[in-house]
């Protein structure tokens, strides 16, 4: 019996250690499920400025905690998602956006796929037109004579 009790205590301690570790990123309670959803998507789409490739909802860096707190406060203040993102970009730069905005520095990122599709379309159109022109053109008398000669040569051999 004592052994089972000891084992139970051991298991409970292990479970508690787990919850303590998870405590590095705080849990926030929301009454409104829409708010909660917005909080989740905002903190998932903002990048921690000091860690490489971690969203602030996934990082225990102090600055991420401050940013989550600010997101929460601004949501409670009734600010729009756009305002909250702008607020962060104003302070920490475009780096914090996982979804880069379309601007001078990112034109290649956004423009290249569209540009390549456009260039490919033009190329295909040009090739198709060239082929259509080529097949529509009549053979000249000289070409016809050469073609006949070639065909006949093939037959006689």
């Amino acid at each position: 019996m004592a052994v089972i009790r000891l084992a139970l205590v051991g298991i409970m301690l292990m479970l508690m250690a787990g919850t303590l570790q998870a405590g590095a990123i705080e849990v926030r309670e929301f009454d409104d499920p829409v708010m909660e959803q917005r909080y989740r998507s905002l903190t998932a789409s903002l990048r921690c400025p000091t860690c490489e490739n971690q969203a602030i909802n996934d990082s225990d860096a102090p600055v991420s905690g401050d940013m989550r707190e600010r997101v929460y406060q601004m949501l409670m203040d009734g600010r729009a998602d756009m305002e909250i993102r702008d607020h962060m970009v104003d302070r920490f730069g475009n780096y914090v956006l996982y979804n880069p905005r379309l601007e001078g520095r990112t034109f290649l990122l956004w423009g290249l796929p569209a540009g390549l599709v456009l260039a490919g379309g033009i190329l295909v159109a040009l090739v198709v037109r060239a082929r259509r022109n080529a097949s529509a053109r009549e053979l000249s008398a000289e070409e016809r004579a050469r073609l006949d000669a070639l065909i006949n040569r093939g037959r006689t051999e």
Partner: protein
Amino acid sequence: MTRRLLLLLPLIGFLGLSLFLYQGLSLNPFHRDSALMAREFPAFDMVTLEDPERRVDRSLLANGEVTLVNVWGEWCPECKREMPQLLDLAARGIRMVGISYKDTREKGLGFLQDFGNPFEVNIFDPDGELAFELGVYGAPETFLVDREGIIRYHHTGYISAGDVREHILPEVQKWQ
């Protein structure tokens, strides 16, 4: 012949793009400009570390002098390592203002006692409120504020003696 050369165009384009993107691989993502570059130092109204009664605001930094604003904390080992360089800068007559970042008053004052105080005054920022406005993501960070109170240069992390020579002094001279 020209048609043949035209066929090389996609290859040339591809190589050019590759070269451009390849350069990006060697960039350090932490060497990025502060979002506040060329913007006014954010407004604040806070007390100083030295005197809880003394309030300071933005006019502290727009007084016709180039100022280096250094964000430090007692908990930050890199801040201790850069103190000799900051004392050297102050000894050269450069105006220094500190931001005591996420410290208690006792710890902040103890730090200055132990490692020297190159700062004319220290803004007391226990909750990191002003540091957040500055987009500080780790201490130490240093901002150069020009005579009109506009941020002109930003250094993230520890300032070495080499950084003083190569970056900080030339920038201070540039804006003086």
